[in-house]
């Protein structure tokens, strides 16, 4: 009545290596990598040149106000 077990020595060894990692430092390493990736992704957009339309819009807002007051 024995159930034959599939034997996968390589996979098991790899899995054990992963399991043996200290959980806290692994977690820190992952969080650190994620944080860097997040900032890299975000900063790439921040560093993009601001299209002229935004500055034109601000100019319009400023001038519409000056002319309505003057």
């Amino acid at each position: 009545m024995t159930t034959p077990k599939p034997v996968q020595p390589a996979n098991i060894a790899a899995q054990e290596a992963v399991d043996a990692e200290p959980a806290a430092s692994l977690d820190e390493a992952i969080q650190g990598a994620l944080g860097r990736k997040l900032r890299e992704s975000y900063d790439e957009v921040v560093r993009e040149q601001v299209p002229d339309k935004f500055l034109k819009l601000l100019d319009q807002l400023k001038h519409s106000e000056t002319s309505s007051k003057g």
Partner: protein
Amino acid sequence: MVAPDFEQSLVGAIPHLRAFARSFANDPARADDLVQETLVKAWNSRESFTPGTNFRAWLFTILRNVYFSQHRKLRREVDDPDEQYQNSLAVPPEQYGYLDLADFRTALSALPSDQREALVLVGAEGFSYEEAAEICGCAVGTIKSRVNRARNRLIELLGDPELKGTGHANPQAANSGLVKDTARG
């Protein structure tokens, strides 16, 4: 009378508003529309800004309000295109653990929007949990739990073994490569 300081601060905040807007609208053109409307609102209500408080947080709150007032309207007409887009972008299992910028963005866009927003505010913009809570109009504990869930979900989506290795090697070379890749795509 227009305070030159206000105008200068507003100009200086535009790059950050654009980046924050992208976390709401995947389409850059839509994100920029959102920023433009935010600038108009901010300009018109500049009297309500309290000097000495966090200007960027004030602007982000306005952007959020603009987005949600539009989004509610949109939702009634079509069936939430953003959510559909996000669902179509789940990282296939064979790519778990392979982390480049495009994959990261795909995983980020697959997060529930409230979690992504909290993660971006705290992790990318560097707001404190308290500031992020104020921007989102929720409790500090809610922000903390959203950030935690976002991190855990990202790890699930990306797979973790390769993440450990992304910090070393030559980050500058890697960055320039990624930037080029993104610009092409």
